[in-house]
């Protein structure tokens, strides 16, 4: 993002920076306090106090139910996302390189990427005859495939031909070229697709568990709703948010390491 030239109206740089940091902390804290105050005031069972929710959160997730529910959910996300990434890259590279293969595959890719995932939830259960882990993972993997696949194709197509020419002129055969040039060159774009895929994985995980499951965070969400246990329900919502946030943060950290060269290169090129 381009740095902004803001009209700060004469406020000195240091006090501006300090003010910003204060705001970054103060705003979330203020929102949380407001939440607590409002729920205390509203005194509605549907909106339990923030403090109650947090207590239930700790009780549920940090001890008893972590193994029974959080772990299966994470396993499904992990497996589904992992399969989607591997398949997306493995299919995306040849499709990016071959115009004919791409033409043949495009109608299918364009169709399936636009179908809303929940439309296929019941079908996935019918076809696979189960509501177990495999069904969930297949469901998650199927839809998480497309962001990675599409970005891989774009990334491969956008590679500067000079890189390929260089590799060819040094006698690298096709497989070596793909391994040492095509894949690294397309990686920034692939990683962007992976990030989208990850957030899609969380969503499809929750959907599939909420629809039909015997374990998992989505299942807990469903059960607590059905038994009118509001605080645990909120705690489940909170957990899903936290999971999504943490996974995102982890991903960004990993991305920083893997794509450090890309940032440096871009920065140097823009001078």
């Amino acid at each position, binding site marked *: *993002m381009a740095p*902004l*030239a*803001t009209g700060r109206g004469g406020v000195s740089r240091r006090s501006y920076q300090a003010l*910003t940091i204060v*705001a*970054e902390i*103060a*705003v*979330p804290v203020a*929102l949380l306090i407001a939440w607590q105050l409002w729920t205390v005031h509203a005194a509605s069972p*549907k909106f339990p106090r923030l403090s109650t929710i947090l207590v239930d959160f700790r009780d549920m997730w940090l001890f008893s139910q972590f193994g029974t529910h959080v772990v299966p959910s994470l396993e499904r996300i992990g497996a589904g996302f992992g399969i989607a990434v591997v398949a997306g890259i493995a299919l995306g590279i040849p499709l990016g390189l071959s115009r*004919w293969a791409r*033409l043949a595959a*495009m*109608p*299918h890719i*364009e*169709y399936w*990427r*636009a*179908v*809303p*995932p*929940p*439309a*296929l939830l*019941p*079908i996935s*259960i*019918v*076809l696979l005859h189960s509501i177990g882990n495999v069904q969930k993972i297949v469901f998650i993997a199927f839809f998480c495939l*497309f962001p990675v696949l599409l*970005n891989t194709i*774009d990334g491969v197509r956008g590679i500067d031909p000079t890189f390929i020419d260089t590799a060819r002129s040094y006698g690298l055969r096709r497989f070596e070229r793909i391994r040492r040039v095509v894949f690294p060159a397309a990686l*920034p*774009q692939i990683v*962007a*697709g992976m990030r*989208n895929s990850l*957030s899609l994985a*969380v*969503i499809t995980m929750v*959907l599939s568990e*909420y*629809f039909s499951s015997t374990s998992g965070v*989505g299942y807990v*969400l*469903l059960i*607590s*709703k059905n038994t009118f246990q509001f605080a645990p*329900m909120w705690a*489940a*919502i909170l957990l*899903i*948010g936290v999971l*999504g*946030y943490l*996974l*995102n943060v982890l991903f960004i950290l990993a991305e920083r390491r893997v794509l450090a060269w890309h940032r440096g290169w871009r920065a140097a090129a823009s001078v």
Partner: protein
Amino acid sequence: MATRGDVAATLAAPERARWRRDRLSLRKLTEALVFTVSIAAALALWELISRTGVISQKDLPAMSTSFRELWSLVQTGDFWKAFGQTVRGWALGLGVATALAVPLGILLGSSDFAARAFRVPIEFLRPIPSAALIPLLFLTLGTTIKSEIFLAAFGAFWPLLVQTMYGVRDVDPLAMDTGRSFGVGRFERLYRIKLPSAVPYIATGLRISSTVSLILAFTAELFMGIPGLGQKVNYAQAFGLEKQLYAYALATGFLGVAIHLVSAAVERRALRWHPSQRVGAA
């Protein structure tokens, strides 16, 4: 070039022109052919798998059966009622999200301070899958279209907000400095420089958000029994009506494709107009 000797084709000029034209249309023809053959092959495969019982016809109705069922459904008013309900939920959800996200995005994008102050809450709320809010909606707004709109709008809001913020922030600083040096006022700078350059980003945000809005509108119908295509799918599954299940799934798929094609086309036009150097997302 007579002095240099001609190395090109030995055809005379009018023949050359015709040959060039034929080659171009030949290429387009083969592309269309590959496209059609690919789809036809997939449909044929579906038919084959189902009819030969590789997957039983109970679980996977044949392609012809499913399409026939869809065709008969399409002729009922009931189908179009459900279709219209889903479209309505989608449109209202997207509309509400746009009405909130774009102004807010412009506001937050224009002010570095505001953007940073609200960064943490946004980063935290953003990844929350809207699906997690379904039980909450059950118990508050109930199984009415209000829930559907809320869910769709909540999901569609975030991508659009983020994209709008990016767009407003990604203004070429040179353009802004030029404006400032010519004494262009703050509001006018916003209106004439920042907004136009943010349009492609907003277009991308709309594309993403329209997909999300459809997913969530359908989800609300599927899980909460709100009238629409999702409800029909749920009903078909619950009562073991496989043919209907597949027919409605197909219909939803086509709706999704239509929405995607339209929003992608709009995005392409907005992008073409802008000299963009952005990193694209799926």
